[in-house]
């Protein structure tokens, strides 16, 4: 959270995260090339460049798969939240590795004096109506363009300018890019390299991403609580059923997720969606008197959903009441920043 936009807000955690990431990428590519060069020494310069194409391509695919797994893993277990913390840098590095893959591909054509053939491959329009024989490089280039736009907008400035909803929609393009990459590999190298490692990596990665998303989705569906018992109110439970400094998340009839927090004897309800990057604030805690989003630490006051000064983010709040000893929340949202928290110790019985 900041009123000043800097290139990168470095801290110790980010430096450690990035260092581990760079080492892992270097190790992957180094080991890949070492094994490739040792088992099958390249015959000529184009063959040598081909090894670099495969190394950086495989690395980019593994990085993409990992990035897509981080989200559902963090929903399944808070132990994976540290991986979510600097996912932006992970994404930018993935774009760089993918761009190097394309760079070596261009160099491969150039090394053979065949650069015009690349242009011919991409512009033979009849081939776009084939399945086997489809210009698979075009799929890779399309994926790279998506990754470029995502990398170029991985900054809080773009989150502010595009607004969170549009920014998030843009960055969901990662799934499109992943699909394009899967087809790029399936229609490309898999057609002429019969190594079992390629389909194993490709379909194994895809299955892992799909499986984790399904598991996280099922867990989300199963964790919804709250019953509509009175017209216009959703029952959450007795006040002490809400862990202190934490929340219970209920779902309104229209699907809106509402986080009902308790801080000692105060109870308040806010939308479950963080204003920063739509993180699930209901999975966060109250720290220093403020609800803290578990993804990036954005904070909001329990009383009114406002970020503490000088920050200006505001979340929609919801009316809460204690009715016959049960906390109930009105699913109709109040304007962002509306005070709505109550002190449950003073409100016993039917009161609003």
């Amino acid at each position, binding site marked *: 959270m900041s*009123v000043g936009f*800097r290139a990168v807000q470095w801290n110790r955690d980010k430096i450690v995260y990035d260092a581990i990431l760079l080492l892992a990428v270097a190790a992957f590519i180094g080991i890949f090339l070492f094994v490739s060069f040792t088992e099958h020494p390249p015959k000529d310069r184009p063959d040598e460049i081909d090894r670099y194409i495969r190394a950086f391509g495989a690395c980019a695919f593994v990085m993409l798969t990992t990035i897509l797994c981080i989200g559902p893993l963090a929903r399944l277990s808070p132990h994976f939240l540290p991986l979510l913390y600097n996912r932006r840098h992970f994404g930018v590095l993935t774009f760089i590795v993918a761009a190097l893959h394309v760079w070596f591909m261009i160099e491969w054509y150039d090394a053979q004096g065949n650069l015009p053939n690349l242009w011919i491959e991409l512009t033979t329009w009849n081939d776009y109506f084939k399945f086997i024989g489809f210009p698979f490089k075009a799929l890779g280039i399309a994926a790279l363009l998506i990754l470029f736009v995502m990398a170029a907008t991985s*900054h809080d400035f773009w989150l502010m300018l595009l607004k969170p909803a549009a920014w998030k929609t843009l960055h969901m393009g990662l799934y499109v890019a992943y699909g394009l990459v899967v087809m790029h590999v399936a229609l490309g190298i898999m057609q002429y390299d019969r190594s079992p490692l390629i389909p194993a990596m490709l379909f194994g990665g895809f299955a892992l991403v799909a499986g984790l998303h399904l598991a996280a989705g099922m867990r989300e569906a199963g964790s919804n609580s709250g019953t509509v018992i009175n017209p216009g109110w959703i029952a959450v439970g007795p006040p002490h059923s809400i862990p202190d400094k934490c929340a219970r998340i209920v779902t309104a009839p229209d699907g809106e997720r509402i986080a009902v927090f308790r801080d000692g004897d105060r109870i308040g309800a806010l939308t479950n969606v963080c204003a920063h990057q739509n993180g699930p604030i209901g999975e966060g805690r109250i720290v220093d008197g403020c609800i803290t989003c578990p993804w990036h630490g954005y904070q909001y006051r329990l009383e009114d959903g406002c970020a503490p000064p000088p920050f200006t983010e505001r979340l929609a709040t919801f009316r809460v009441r204690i009715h016959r000893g049960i906390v109930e929340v009105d699913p109709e949202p109040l304007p962002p920043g509306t005070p709505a928290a109550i002190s449950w110790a003073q409100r016993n019985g039917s009161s609003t």
Partner: protein
Amino acid sequence: MGLFVTSVVAVYVLVGLIVAAVFLSIGVQSVLPPSATMTRPARMMLLPGVVALWPYVLYRWLRPPTRR
């Protein structure tokens, strides 16, 4: 057809570079929240994004400010 597509992309990028140079020099402050600041390295880092999304950036920069 290929030459046409390439030309369109080249023009888009060229216009984007011009818009980015002007916007990041003198226009970015007008789209920031009141009292917010932006460092020079941050402005440089935004260049690829402005080139990619220059039509929207231009729209946000030039539209009249709205009251809340």
